[in-house]
């Protein structure tokens, strides 16, 4: 895919919290319309990197730019309203119905209630939850996987040009997961959204990514296409590919 322009750029970014260095030497750009998957082990700094983009965190070194401006120069509310965010812990509002949860950002932006309702229903269909059955339920009345899908719908609601998704399909069964991955990839290409997607699942990364960024100990140790990743000499990349190779050997033996 041809880069159409730079949406986000990290310039010599580092983050130190309480004397601990969580991220260092981050230098990369995210192109408009690309699907960047941040891959890495638990604790490698994926979530932290993502939070630098919507300024839930500010870098202690270097600059993170969204469009032209440093995130620290943005009106933080405006910045966040333009970036859909699916948080790792889902974080639905327990006292809001599913409908109110999904309609949150449109409501904040002052859409009228008819627009909100039709948008919410459209999204519930998209994620495979029948509105008639689910719209008026509360989050605790849903399964973990259903809640996770509602989290995705909520991030998409106001049609933001960019999405940050932190392990959005983690709680799904492999079948629903694959369905949603394919559906979502198609949707992303169709709508031309810029997506930053965090996972520790190499298969998911290979299915979705236009580029894979591999994180290790707070650094970006590899950045390139899935094809390049498969041929990378990088030790951490090799570690991630090992289970995949073992799987291949198994299936060949059949």
């Amino acid at each position, binding site marked *: 895919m041809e880069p159409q322009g730079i949406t986000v750029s990290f310039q010599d970014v580092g983050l130190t919290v309480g004397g601990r260095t969580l991220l260092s030497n981050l230098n990369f750009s995210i192109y408009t319309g690309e699907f960047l998957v941040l891959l890495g082990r638990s604790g490698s700094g994926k979530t932290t990197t993502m939070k630098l983009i919507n300024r*839930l965190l500010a870098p202690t070194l270097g600059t993170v730019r969204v469009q032209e401006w440093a995130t620290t120069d943005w009106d933080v*509310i405006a910045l*966040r309203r333009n970036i859909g965010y699916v948080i790792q*812990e889902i974080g639905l*509002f*327990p*006292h809001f119905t599913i409908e109110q949860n999904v309609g*949150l*950002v449109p409501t904040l932006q002052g859409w009228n209630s008819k627009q909100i309702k039709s948008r919410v229903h459209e999204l519930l269909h998209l994620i495979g939850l029948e509105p008639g059955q689910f719209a008026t339920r509360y989050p605790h009345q849903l399964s973990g996987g259903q809640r996770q899908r509602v989290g995705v719908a909520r991030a998409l609601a106001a049609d933001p040009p960019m999405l940050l998704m932190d392990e959005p399909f983690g709680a799904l069964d492999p079948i629903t997961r694959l369905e949603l991955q394919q559906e979502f990839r198609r949707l992303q290409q169709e709508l031309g959204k810029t997506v930053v997607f965090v996972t520790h699942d190499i298969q998911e990364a290979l299915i979705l990514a236009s580029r894979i960024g591999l994180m290790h100990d707070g650094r970006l140790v590899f950045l390139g296409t899935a094809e390049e990743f498969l041929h990378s000499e990088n030790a951490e990349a090799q570690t991630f590919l090992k289970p995949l190779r073992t799987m291949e050997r198994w299936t060949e033996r059949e």
Partner: protein
Amino acid sequence: MNNFFLIKYGSEILQRMGEHLLLVGIAIATAILISLPLGILITRQKALRQPILALANVLQTIPSLAMFGLLIPLVGIGSLPAVIALTLYSFLPIIRNTYTGIMSVDPAVREAGRGMGMTDWQLLSQVELPLAAGVILAGVRVATVIAVGIATIAAAIGAGGLGVFIFRGIAVVNNDLILAGAVPAAAIALVADYGISWLEKRFGGCLKNPDVR
């Protein structure tokens, strides 16, 4: 039968109850107006948490007669010092519960709200306060029950209320008079306790578990 204390003192009991309720009502309303913002403030300004809670704690430990006594040189006698004292006693439970209620909101929920671009005010009014409502009401309930009890002592500084019976009863050694004050005061405390717990369940309980609505 006509000697039964509730009947014997019937009309005066009603009048004293009215005074009692007014003292407590005004004090609790004032305390909410002051404590709720203070409770919210200390969730935002961590540095203020210790001093404000410590102050509220100290107020709570002042014996009630001493508190009334200390207020007399400042505002004289009557209902004003009584209301002020009751208000001061109500600070701690309400401030503490407001703080605890807000802080116990799931951090993931708060972070989702912030990440979605809610302003601090929107987060507070649409997420934190509704989710903390049950705990805050529990604080108001404790404050109210305490205030109903302490208000009986306010009669000593001329604030009226059910304490009037009790002090008179003690002075003339008449148990009926003491009961005419004590029993209605206990009844008010019980009703307030029950009524506010009902509100807690309605507003707090249903938010976490809408099935019980």
